[in-house]
């Protein structure tokens, strides 16, 4: 498969595990190089710490050797040479840094390719890599000149290539992300894993305690048996009127045994008590450790940011630097994943709109280089992320005008709004104050997307600014998504969970406080009218019997408050969130599921979704008419046709044609799929191709004709093959009609279908 390495008796087949490890190695080392190179550029002459960079390049070379990747060996060797020279005093010019960054980009890209595709991709890139190597070597040879590099290049050097990788290299080899989400690899710290192993081991040991314990209980049981025996004998002795001595003896033995029993049981209970304490401690620690393993350092999502900020600034002819505080702050990996896009957008915004050009900054007495500080911190049980720039801030007055211009609010209202409220308008969808839509930002999409993401995880976002001084975005997010505190309620006999974060309040409202307008119920609370909606209705379930007091859970969005009526309130609990099976697509009103204490499943409701649906219901007045059809039940008498073809174009064309005419059409992608479909569904006609993988058309037709239940099903062949032999073959197999694709006009197909099955 790979042509980059010459066949060699000693080179073994590279096994996939090795390639996986190789990929991780490339990722790790190229990231080290990336941060290092950016630092070199920033510090210029002052940078001295070349050792780790040299080692990174060296490791890459070694890795390249193991997997026999010649181009990588060559490239990393050249990079290593540069750092070795740098250690001896060679000055890396900014041009050379540029080239090195370009080279490293290639490595970063390599790390994203699926291991199986790597050799082919490297093959493709070979000439590019060779060019880079040449450039690097040339840069290295200029060491004798050793001119002081300037930190601030006036213009980007011409011969250096464009930074962004060419799109063709990305498309040509399918950069396949791991095909199944469940198989993706995750990073967990060795420490965490070790602790988990320790706890798991301890759990095993603890579980072994139970068997001997059960046995010891047997001993107690035996004593008990003996006691019973003696009591029996005592009873018999009385019956047989034995001597008082004997009676006393039996009784005393019985008492002694009873004592022994007592002591034994007390000891066993004490043992069990201790076990319970140990066990619950162990379980709690194990649970905590597993939850912890979900946490990653904040730095994990920052990979591309410093570089992005620098490149973007360069493009805009500005100088901007990104500083990160709190790289080690632990963040739930799911939240981390969701953060990348929003943070990226805010940063781009800051560079584009926030930071001024150098002359302007100097005139204002600021440093020519703009600074953006990205900080992550745990505070009060939440994750706080702030992005602040020292740019021009936001012109609030201009913003007020803009709001009026866009017709979003009346002038007198806008006047009365506080600065905070005005700034919130920035996050409306489609809002943009940029004079033009640049490639980078100003499309008015971004901030709204950020707010959506933040709300999705039940967080919040705030904007603060000081004119001329800068802007700050403050995001408040939960520490983890995997555990959620929820209110348990009962609706229609089943328990449901409402995430606490979204609940305003919970009330028990007595019937006499409920009023109604136009058939809709509401009640008054603290000067607000809260509309009442039965949860059973939203969820399409059986409503409860009428009650004296209603249990109401109150939510609100920006405009309204909603009171959802449930059958009963059951309590509050912390749940580990189980995502719904991927086979179930997004279900309305459902967020996820969890397990209750007794092990039974509980549905966690999606409040945002419910509020949206309630809104819709209220405005369209169809409160009593919720219909969610889950099954494709055909209630009409349309005739059903199955189209079988492995070409997606042909399938779609034929399907559209037939549907437009009024038929119900379903598709199958090959013969086997068609065979399954025809046995499961009930069709009036099958339209099939001949040449298909996994059972061709002829085989399909024969199978249908051989089946007792399907042998009379009309079949039409639509095929590229139009020789007489093909036609004969098809008809002999049992087709009713043969249509050649070259004869294909809308008319011919339709007419043939009508002929066969009517309209």
């Amino acid at each position, binding site marked *: 498969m790979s042509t980059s390495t010459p066949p060699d008796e000693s080179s073994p087949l590279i096994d996939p595990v090795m390639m996986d490890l190789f990929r991780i190695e490339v990722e790790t080392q190229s990231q080290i190089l990336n941060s290092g190179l950016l630092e070199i550029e920033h510090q210029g002459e002052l940078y001295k710490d070349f050792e780790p960079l040299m080692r990174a390049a060296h490791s890459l070379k070694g890795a390249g050797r193991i997997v026999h990747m010649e181009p990588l060996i060559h490239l990393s060797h050249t990079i290593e040479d540069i750092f070795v020279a740098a250690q001896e005093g060679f000055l890396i010019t900014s041009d050379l840094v540029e080239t090195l960054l370009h080279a490293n980009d290639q490595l970063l890209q390599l790390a994203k390719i699926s291991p199986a595709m790597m050799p082919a991709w490297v093959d493709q890139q070979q000439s590019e890599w060779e060019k880079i190597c040449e450039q690097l070597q040339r840069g290295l040879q200029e060491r004798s000149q050793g001119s002081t590099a300037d930190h601030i290049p006036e213009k980007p050097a011409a011969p250096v290539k464009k930074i962004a990788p060419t799109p063709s290299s990305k498309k040509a080899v399918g950069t396949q992300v791991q095909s199944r989400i469940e198989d993706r690899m995750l990073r967990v710290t060795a420490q965490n894993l070790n602790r988990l192993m320790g706890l798991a081991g301890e759990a095993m040991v603890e579980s072994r305690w139970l068997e001997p314990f059960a046995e010891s209980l047997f001993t107690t049981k035996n004593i008990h048996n003996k006691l019973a025996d003696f009591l029996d004998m005592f009873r018999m002795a009385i019956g047989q009127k034995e001597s008082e001595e004997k009676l006393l003896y039996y009784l005393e033995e019985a008492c002694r045994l009873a004592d022994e029993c007592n002591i034994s049981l007390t000891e066993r209970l004490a043992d069990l008590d201790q076990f319970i304490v140990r066990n619950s401690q162990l379980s709690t620690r194990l649970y905590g450790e597993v939850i912890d393993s979900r946490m990653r350092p904040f730095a994990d999502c920052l990979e591309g940011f410093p570089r992005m900020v620098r490149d973007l600034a360069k493009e805009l002819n500005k100088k901007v630097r990104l500083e990160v505080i709190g790289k080690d702050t632990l963040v739930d990996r799911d939240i981390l994943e969701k953060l990348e896009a929003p943070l990226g957008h805010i940063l781009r915004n800051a560079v584009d709109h926030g930071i001024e050009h150098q002359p302007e900054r100097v005139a204002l007495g600021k440093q020519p280089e703009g600074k953006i500080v990205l900080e992550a911190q745990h505070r009060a049980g939440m994750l706080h992320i702030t992005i602040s720039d020292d740019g021009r801030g936001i012109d609030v007055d201009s913003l007020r005008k803009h709001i009026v211009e866009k017709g979003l609010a009346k002038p007198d209202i806008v006047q009365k709004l506080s600065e905070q409220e005005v700034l919130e308008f920035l996050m409306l969808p489609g809002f943009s104050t940029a004079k033009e839509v640049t490639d980078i930002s100003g499309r008015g999409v971004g901030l709204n997307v950020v707010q959506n993401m933040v709300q999705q995880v039940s967080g919040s976002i705030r904007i603060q600014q000081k004119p001329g001084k800068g802007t700050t975005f403050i995001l408040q997010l939960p520490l983890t998504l995997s555990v959620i505190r929820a209110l348990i309620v009962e609706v229609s006999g089943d328990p449901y969970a409402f995430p606490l974060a979204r609940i305003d309040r919970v009330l028990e409202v007595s019937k006499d406080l409920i009023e109604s307008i136009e058939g809709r119920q509401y009640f008054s609370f603290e000067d607000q009218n809260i509309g009442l909606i039965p949860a059973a209705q939203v969820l399409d379930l059986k409503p409860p019997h009428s009650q004296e007091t209603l249990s109401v859970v109150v939510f609100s969005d920006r405009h309204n408050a909603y009171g959802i009526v449930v059958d009963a309130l059951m309590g509050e609990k912390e749940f580990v969130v189980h995502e*719904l099976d991927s*086979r*179930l*697509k997004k279900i309305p009103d459902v967020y996820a*599921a969890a397990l209750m204490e007794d092990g039974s499943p509980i549905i966690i409701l999606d409040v945002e979704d419910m509020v949206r649906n309630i809104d819709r219901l209220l405005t369209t007045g169809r409160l009593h008419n919720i219909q969610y059809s*889950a099954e494709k039940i055909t209630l009409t008498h349309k005739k059903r046709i199955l189209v079988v073809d492995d070409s997606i174009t042909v399938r779609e064309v034929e399907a559209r044609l037939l549907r437009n005419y009024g038929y119900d059409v379903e598709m199958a992608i090959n013969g086997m799929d068609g065979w399954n479909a025809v046995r499961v569904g009930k069709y009036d006609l099958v339209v099939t191709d001949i040449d298909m993988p996994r059972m061709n058309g002829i085989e399909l037709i024969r199978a249908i004709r051989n089946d007792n*239940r399907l042998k009379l099903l009309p079949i039409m062949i639509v095929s590229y093959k139009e020789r007489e032999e093909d036609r004969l073959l098809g008809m002999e197999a049992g087709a009713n009609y043969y249509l050649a694709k070259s004869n294909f006009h809308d008319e011919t197909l339709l007419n043939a279908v009508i002929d066969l099955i009517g309209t």
Partner: protein
Amino acid sequence: MSEDKKLSLSLASHLLERPVDDAYLEEWTNLFSQDRMEGNGRNFQSVVVFRLGNEWFALSTKVFSEISKMRVIRRIPHRSTDTLRGLVNLRGQLQLCVDLAKILEIEDAEDPSQGMLMSIAHNGKTWVFVASEILGIFPYDVDVLKNVPVTVAKSTANYLKGVFSFDDKHASILDEELLFYSLDRRVT
């Protein structure tokens, strides 16, 4: 360990671990690569036999991953009017529980809250359904499979590969490929 015992152990391992020569390997390779002899021996497959409603069904043992006692099946809002019965907790994982009787269009299925949970899997996806009773694992002779009687409803019959007899009963064997295909289509 006695000397004798040690000696016989070492002789035994010597015997069992002696290297094989090529001719030996060749002979056995040929033996294993031969086509299975048809008609001569009998061709047995293994199935699990269970009851839905009043009828016995069988499904290839290979597709089963677990059988357990009845547990709470929680219905899913907006989705539990069809063949999906809801979520069930098996070993800490939430699995999908389907109504097999509905798919096979069997009437007079029994009390849905009784029975045993059968967990079957295909392509890494698990499906759970409830059987009223499980008889056990049985072998059946593929060659002696009887045809599905005409009296069986058309829609059910599609899923049946045939009928086989055992003891004084007979069980209809389900076509697992078609079953999974149908489950995939209906639920996703």
